[in-house]
């Protein structure tokens, strides 16, 4: 755990107690079973917004608290522990980052206060296929109208404002704002294994306003989203591990708790080691963003790759070490396994980020 300021400690403690009281994994199960159209519980999201969580990286003049990315990461980590589904990452982190970094005064004034108070949801629409590939952009803007297709848009169904990557009339990639209720926007809900909100979106001449910053802005926004989801994954992976560890200490076979078997102990020690290493990478990436360090791209790729590997391992071991009960839908293990793969794929999986890391290093 990073050394925290007093504000950050309070924020984390508040998030921890709200999550444990109001949003345990059973709340996620209920949301999934209800078939919630948006892929999250709207009432819970409203409570989160009331606590100011949607405005953590938004400047105070636009209704936020400007506490920074490490602070927002602490909240996402706590939410990740119980797999709490919400638009916090897509809206309060990704879309808000795009507006803060690339919006005009008018665009910021229009959207940031509403995002901060949770009355508007933003989402980032970048990929056009099943593999993260932000440099492959077919969507285009002509005369202020955006045409093209975006795939696997997180919280795409809920979005009041979409931040869309597209080629401008000069052929260069940039980010554009499109309203969710524009007549030229057609959304299709995707039902994925992790039960979260995702959509494929077709744009047919939807009204689009450019943000400034071009492809650099796109990379900056993506790096913030990657670090944010890595923080959420850190919480999920730690909880998956702790739940598994508890099982090792209580499940009895051959007359003893199975946690007394060295074959399992050493795998537990390996998971713990990996979790500690991954935590360092995630916190370093978030801190680098707050410091506006030039190392942000490589540190973020390091964090997303290490966190992805770690959550992958821990989620697999969670099922394996629970044995048959871990295979049942009644147990939570499956939720963590499914979420792990969805989160790994989001904004670039391990292979994507290993390659990107090496390219940044020049090999």
């Amino acid at each position, binding site marked *: 755990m990073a050394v925290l300021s007093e504000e950050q400690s309070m924020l984390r403690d508040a998030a921890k107690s709200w999550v444990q009281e109001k949003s345990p994994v059973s709340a996620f199960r209920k949301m999934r079973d209800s078939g919630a159209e948006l892929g999250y519980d709207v009432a819970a999201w409203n409570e989160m917004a009331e606590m100011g969580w949607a405005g953590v990286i938004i400047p105070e003049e636009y209704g936020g608290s400007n506490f920074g990315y490490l602070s927002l990461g602490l909240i996402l980590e706590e939410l990740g522990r119980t797999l709490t589904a919400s638009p916090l990452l897509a809206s309060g982190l990704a879309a808000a980052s795009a507006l803060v970094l690339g919006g005009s005064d008018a665009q910021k004034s229009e959207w940031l206060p509403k995002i901060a108070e949770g009355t508007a949801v933003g989402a980032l629409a970048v990929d056009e296929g099943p593999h993260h590939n932000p440099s492959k952009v077919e969507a285009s803007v002509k005369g202020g109208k955006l045409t093209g297709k975006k795939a696997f848009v997180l919280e795409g169904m809920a979005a009041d404002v979409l931040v869309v990557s597209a080629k401008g009339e000069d052929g260069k990639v940039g980010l554009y704002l499109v309203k969710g209720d524009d007549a030229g926007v057609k959304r299709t809900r995707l039902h994925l294994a992790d039960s979260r909100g995702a959509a494929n979106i077709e744009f047919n001449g939807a009204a689009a306003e450019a943000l400034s910053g071009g492809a650099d802005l796109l990379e900056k926004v993506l790096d913030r989203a990657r670090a944010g989801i890595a923080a959420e994954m850190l919480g999920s992976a730690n909880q998956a591990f702790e739940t598994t560890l508890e099982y090792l200490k209580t499940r009895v076979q051959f007359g003893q708790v199975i946690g007394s078997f060295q074959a399992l102990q050493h795998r537990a020690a390996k998971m*713990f080691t990996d979790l500690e290493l991954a935590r360092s990478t995630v916190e370093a990436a978030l801190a680098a963003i707050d410091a506006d360090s030039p190392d942000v791209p490589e540190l973020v790729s390091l964090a997303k790759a290490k966190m992805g590997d770690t959550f992958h391992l821990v989620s697999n071991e969670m099922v394996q070490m629970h044995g048959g009960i871990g295979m049942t839908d009644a147990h939570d293990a499956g939720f963590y396994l499914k979420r792990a793969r969805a989160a790994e794929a989001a904004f670039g999986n391990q292979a994507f980020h*290993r390659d990107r890391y090496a390219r940044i290093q020049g090999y």
Partner: protein
Amino acid sequence: MADFGGGDLDAFRAEARAWIEANFPAELKNKPNPMMREEAVEPSPAQQAWKKAMGDKGWGVPTWPAQYGGGGLSPAEARVVQQELGRAGAYNPIGGMGVMMFGPTLLEYGTEAQKQEHIPGIVKGEVWWCQGYSEPGAGSDLAALQTRCEDKGDHFLINGQKIWTSGAQYADMCFCLVRTDTTKKHEGISFVLIDMHQPGVEVRPIKLINGTSPFCETFFTDARAEKKNLVGPLNGGWTIGKRLLQHERSGLSGGGGMFGMGRSLDNMAKEYVGVDEAGRIADSDLRSRIIQNDMDWRAFQQTAMRAMAEAKGNSGPSAATSIMKNAATSTLQTRAELTVEIMGAQGLGWTGDEFSKEEKEAVRSWLGGKATTIYGGSQEVQSNIISKRILGLPDLTQNH
């Protein structure tokens, strides 16, 4: 997050820079630390002068108390000294097991008289220490050690055999775990300091698979230790011995120093394997394994920084120490494997002019590095410790 210094440190930085400029011999700039060599060689006058200057200043152990000759600096100031040494291309000539392990332990558990007697010699690099822990029948199960230590009234009499005593052939003194009560296991062990220059001590170097002999067998036959050289209570050595192991493990995981990091793997791979039209290492399978190893090393370094920032204010190594050793050693072993693989058959050259110095060092580092997951608590023992101490799983060995 780590504190990387503020305004207060600027004045100290200027002072440190000026002192290093005035005292570090120019001819040693960017030269390797002679301490890192396996064989003892006569130091040059410049090397001796630099060691004396650093020893007198106490900056070889910058955070140790000034009353015993240490630098008396804060951790932030110590980092500045380290940075300024690096900037000047200077090495730290003060080191060894006295610095890494014994000194910190004695500062914590020794009497005032023991600290006065033993710490200054470590600070100045004048007394070389070795570690008498493992025995032929006591490796991972260290508390099974049998070396007998009998109270003879005015002195202790020591009989037995130690093994893997690093650097015993050059050592002046040995910090040693000995058995003072044969009726108990852990509670029958004491921590004594033994003079290596006496007739009852015989040292035989052990040749390893990489051709070097960094470790020895050490035989004690009616060797003596003075009563004042018992550290801590009689039969109370296990606690002290374990504490020292924590220092050893944090030291062993502290960097690639011992087996040398050399140049980056991607640089080597570009040379030996070539690059594709996009400038990537041509062998994509090798490339992805190099990336993985780079990332593992970076994550380890970040964790070391994080542990340091979190431990600030606390003294001594944290519980994270045991994680660090496994993480560092496995990553560095993989790195050594990759180095040999990158070089191909050239990376297996043992002797001869057909192989570069770097190639011959690669094969020996790869082999020598195998010891790192065995000594200082094997990988498996570290995993046992994590399981029991940190994760609270049942202990099957009852040894740690």
